[in-house]
C-alpha cells in the first residue's frame, strides 16, 4: 500500500528539482529509491516531464529585423538629448546639497521651537524660588505668627505695613 501512497509536498518539490538536475546527490538517491518502488511517483515524473516538454510547442518569438538598429539609434538619441554625465553628477550633488540644507533648516526650526516651548511651559525650580523669595526670607517671622487667623488680624490692623516701614527706616 505504501507504494501507492500520495507523495509528500517535499517529495513533489524534489521530483521537479530532480527532473531539472538541481538536487544534491543524497536527495537524488532518495528520489531514485522512491521511483524504484512507487508507480505513483513514476507516473508523476512521467507526466511532469511530458507536460514540461509540451512547452517546446510555444512559437519562437524573435526581435524584428531592425531591432538592433532602432535600439542603437534611440540610445544615441538619448545620449544627445540627455546632459553629459559630469553635469548630471553636478546637478545631482547640488540637489543633494539642497535637500541636506533644507533638512538642516527644518531641524534648526524644530530645535528652536522645542527650546522655546520647554522654556515657557515647563516649570523652572529657580523661578519658583524667586516667586517665593519674600516668604522664604521672612520664614522665621511667619512661623512666630502661628496661625492664619492671627496674621489676618495683624493685616487688618495694618501692623505689618507699619513694621515694614520701621524696618525700612
Amino acid at each position: 500500500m505504501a507504494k501507492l501512497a500520495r507523495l509528500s509536498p517535499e517529495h513533489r518539490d524534489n521530483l521537479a528539482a530532480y527532473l531539472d538536475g538541481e538536487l544534491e546527490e543524497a536527495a537524488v538517491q532518495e528520489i531514485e529509491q522512491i521511483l524504484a518502488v512507487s508507480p505513483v511517483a513514476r507516473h508523476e515524473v512521467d507526466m511532469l516531464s511530458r507536460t514540461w516538454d509540451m512547452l517546446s510547442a510555444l512559437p519562437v518569438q524573435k526581435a524584428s529585423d531592425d531591432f538592433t538598429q532602432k535600439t542603437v539609434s534611440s540610445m544615441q538619441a538619448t545620449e544627445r538629448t540627455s546632459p553629459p554625465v559630469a553635469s548630471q553628477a553636478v546637478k545631482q550633488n547640488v540637489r543633494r546639497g539642497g535637500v541636506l540644507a533644507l533638512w538642516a533648516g527644518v531641524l534648526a526650526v524644530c530645535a528652536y521651537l522645542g527650546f522655546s516651548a520647554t522654556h515657557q511651559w515647563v516649570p523652572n525650580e529657580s523661578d519658583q524660588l524667586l516667586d517665593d523669595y519674600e516668604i522664604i526670607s521672612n520664614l522665621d517671622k511667619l512661623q512666630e505668627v502661628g496661625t492664619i487667623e492671627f496674621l489676618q488680624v495683624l493685616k487688618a490692623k495694618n501692623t505689618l505695613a507699619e513694621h515694614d516701614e520701621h524696618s525700612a527706616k
Partner: protein
Amino acid sequence: MNQNGTDENPVLRDPDVRLMLRAKGGDETAFTKLVANYQDRLVGVLAHLLENKDVAEDLAQEVFLRIYRARHGYEPTAKFSTWLFRIANNLANNQRRNTGRKKEVALNVNDSGPLGPRPGERLIAEKSGLMPNRQYDKSEMCTMVQAALATLNEKQRMAVLLHKFEEMSYVDIAAALETTPTAVKSLLSRARDNLREILEPYVKQGTLGTTETEEE
C-alpha cells in the same frame, strides 16, 4: 592568476560581462554586440510573459536603454544575463500593473470581448468536456500551451521561461527574480504541477501521448 585577472573574479569569465566592461569604457560596438546577442532571447521571453510581441519589443528596447544609461556605474558582480533579466522582470511587472489597472476600468469580467473566448476560457471549456476527444495539430497544441502558461502567476511564468528557454539554473533565476534558490525550487514545482494539471488530458489524448503511462 591569469592575464585577465579572472581568477580573482569568476564573473569576469562571462564574455558578456567583458563586453559590458568594454561598453563602460566607451566602446559602442561592444554594446551593439550585446544587443544583437540578447535581442531575440529577451524579446522571446518577454513576448511569452506579456502575451504581446509589440509590447515585448518596446520593453526589450527599454531594458537595453536602461543598461546603456547605467553603463558608467556598471560593476561586474553577477552574470550579465542575470542582470539583464532582472531589469526585464522589473519592467514587465510595472507594465503588467499598468495594463491591469487599465483593464480593470475597460473590461467587464464576464465579457470575453469582440474576439470571442480568451485562451484560458477556451481551455476551461475544452477541459470540461465540451470538445470531443481528438488528435491536436501543432497550432492547437501551441494555443493550449500558451493558455496553460497564462494560468501561472507572474513569478512562476518568469521562472518557467528562464528555466525552459534560457536554461538558467535555480541560483541564476533566484538572482534575476531577486529571491532565493529554495523559493525558485518551490515556484517551479508549483508551476510544473499547474501545467501538468492543465495539460495532462491533452498528453493522454493528443499527439504527444506516445508513451504508455503507469495508469494505462
